[in-house]
């Protein structure tokens, strides 16, 4: 785990204005520090993930960014405003604990959520009907929320989050509780939002979602953010891994293998040397090692997470995933 927190700019977006900027956010509950000095910068139009195990401080961080609670220390700005409620019409938020009025019709629920964000109720309701049609839920528009399946109710709430066409969409564990099909739909929806220029920030404890979708991530563990920056830069924290298979078992070429090389089964595994693969290749050829296969694999976000946040955080992340799958 890195000793000091670091903030690496999301390189491609370094020149873009920031949708969210937070510096040194601290939140304590009853003497317990839930979030401890979080720094986050999210450029406009980015898909940004907050990645960490359950209880790491993701939701508290998002709540502070949205102005639901105020930080005890630090500053946060959303589109340059320190009071997010002042620009409520620009923001859409889907909380982790989904909730709608059970007796409300789906279309009215979306209308109500739009009205909360400043849309005239009639306009929001009409737009809600359109969105339900577009997303294949037209038949459920006039059904009460209590009559819908959990997945459908979640989709209704997501549409309610988007009905007022926000410029920033904040999703707290949006994939939680969705089946694979709906997770795919949600991923496509998030990409479509970003293509339209909407900034999307979501929290997750599933690395795969962040790796597939995000250009920037903040890794959070124990209330601290040991890394915030681009996914590429996170992966680059770990040298690429080389897997080598040779015909010969012994020879002078073995001296050219890096010090961390280990032999497992038919393969040699080691980190890509700083000097690159070429000097090693030369030694293997000249030593007649007989290269049967050679692959260089860039580290995944999971490896980066383990490297940055530590084994314990990674274990907690995996336990959270397993618990969710059991449900």
């Amino acid at each position, binding site marked *: 785990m890195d000793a000091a927190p670091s903030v690496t700019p999301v390189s491609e977006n370094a020149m873009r204005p920031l949708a969210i900027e937070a510096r040194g956010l601290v939140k304590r509950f009853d003497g317990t520090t839930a979030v401890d000095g979080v720094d986050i910068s999210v450029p406009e139009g980015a898909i940004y993930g907050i990645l960490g195990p359950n209880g790491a401080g993701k939701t508290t961080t998002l709540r502070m960014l949205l102005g*639901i609670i105020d930080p005890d220390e630090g500053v946060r700005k959303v589109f340059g405003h320190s009071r997010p*409620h002042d620009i409520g019409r*620009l923001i859409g938020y889907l909380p982790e604990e989904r*909730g709608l*009025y059970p007796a409300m019709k789906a279309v009215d629920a979306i209308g109500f*959520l739009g009205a909360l964000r*400043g849309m005239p109720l009639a306009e929001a309701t009409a737009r809600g009907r359109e969105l339900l049609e577009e997303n294949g839920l037209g038949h459920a528009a006039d059904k009460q929320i209590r009559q819908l399946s959990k997945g459908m109710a979640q989709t209704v709430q997501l549409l309610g989050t988007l009905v007022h066409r*926000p410029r920033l969409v904040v999703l707290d564990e949006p994939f939680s509780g969705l089946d694979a099909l709906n997770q795919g739909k949600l991923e496509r929806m998030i990409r479509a939002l970003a293509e*339209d220029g909407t900034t999307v920030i979501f929290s997750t404890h599933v690395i795969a979602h962040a790796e597939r979708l995000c250009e920037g991530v903040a890794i959070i563990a124990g209330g601290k953010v040991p890394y915030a920056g681009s996914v590429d830069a996170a992966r680059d924290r770990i040298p690429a891994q080389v897997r080598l298979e040779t015909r010969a078992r012994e020879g002078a070429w073995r001296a050219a293998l890096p010090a961390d090389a280990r032999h497992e089964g038919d393969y040699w595994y080691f980190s890509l040397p700083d000097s690159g693969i070429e000097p090693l290749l030369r030694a293997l050829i000249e030593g007649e090692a007989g290269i049967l296969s050679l692959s260089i694999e860039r580290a995944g976000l999971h490896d980066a997470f383990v490297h940055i946040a530590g084994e314990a955080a990674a274990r907690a992340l995996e336990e959270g995933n397993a618990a969710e799958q059991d449900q």
Partner: protein
Amino acid sequence: MTGQTAPAARLSLLRAAFVIARRDFLAILLSKAFFFFLLGPIILIAVSGGAGAIGAKAAKNAHPAQLAVAMPTEQAHAFAAAHDRIDPLVSLPAITLVDPVQASDPAALLQRSGENYGAVLTGSLTQPVLTGTEDQIRKWQGEVALLAATASGADQQSFPRVVTESTTTSGAAKKSARAGTATAALTLLFLLTMLLAGMVLSNLVEEKANKIIEVLAASIPMDAVFLGKLFAMLAVSFVGIAVWGGIGLAIMGATGGLTASLPVPAVGWPLFVVLFLLYFAMAYLIIGSVFLAIGAMAPTVRDVQTLSMPATMLQLGVFFLATYASTDLGSPVELAAVIFPPSSPYAMISRAAQVPDLWPHLVALAWQAMWVVLFVRAGSAMFRRRVMKSGPQQSGKRRLFGKVAR
């Protein structure tokens, strides 16, 4: 999906509160539970009204009012003899012969405790004077004329003219009647507030159970959420009051019941009704905001029930304070009841019944409105601080008392 960009703005506090209030109001009004909520007090009123009527009749039969006869001795005996003769034929009030000296002030005799005089008959058989309440005079005037005529042996076609003296026109009686109006209004205000304020609490608990509260908190300031909820419930309460009041008035109109005996409050009926509604709104908003703060603090429904007990006790205490203060206008206790925000509406409606001055009501309403705003703000701040936590949930007890323990 987001081809166009929403304009950068936010809802004003009042508009945001309106969005919440509109939803809550319609949701409650259109629910089946509201129908039963409306029925509850009607059944209660009907049952208690019936029980009251039965009780009143029983009490009347057990202790019928008597006519005190305070005439010169011979005439009084003649009157009694006439009573004995006619009573088997016509139902007459029971009579008691009283020493005329004791009846030198008939009004005082009527007020004497331990006696059960409905009216006092003085004067003579040819010029009887009947003193009593207007109701009682109206009821007994004919009987007295008949008995006096019979006792004096006069022609049954010529009855003596009964001179009447109503005791309700005196200043003391009026004051006493207004105090009664004050107590009645105060009690009604308390009962309505007690009945309706709890709805705010259950509404917020429902909101927490639905988990929609976080969406609301993210979209608009909590002040607006609280205000919206309070005013929605207030509007629902007014609907309830309109229904119950309408039914009550219809019953009274049909029976001719209380209208005749309701003493006019000092500020007059129209203004008194307006002030009653305003003070109900204030009492409701103040106690409602306290309940909201409790709902905000309590993590579970069980905790809500536990925590609402002190607030209910506070309501009772406030009621007793205001009732006590209403009998002693201008005293330090009454002033304290007027100033203390939760008791202020009750103390002021009591004043409206007894004192005609209007300016204190303007000051009191402004004072109470200020406290409503303060309570709402404190409640919403508490909510943000205590409820919007994530991570492992502590038990309610630990949450509430953890700080104290440390």
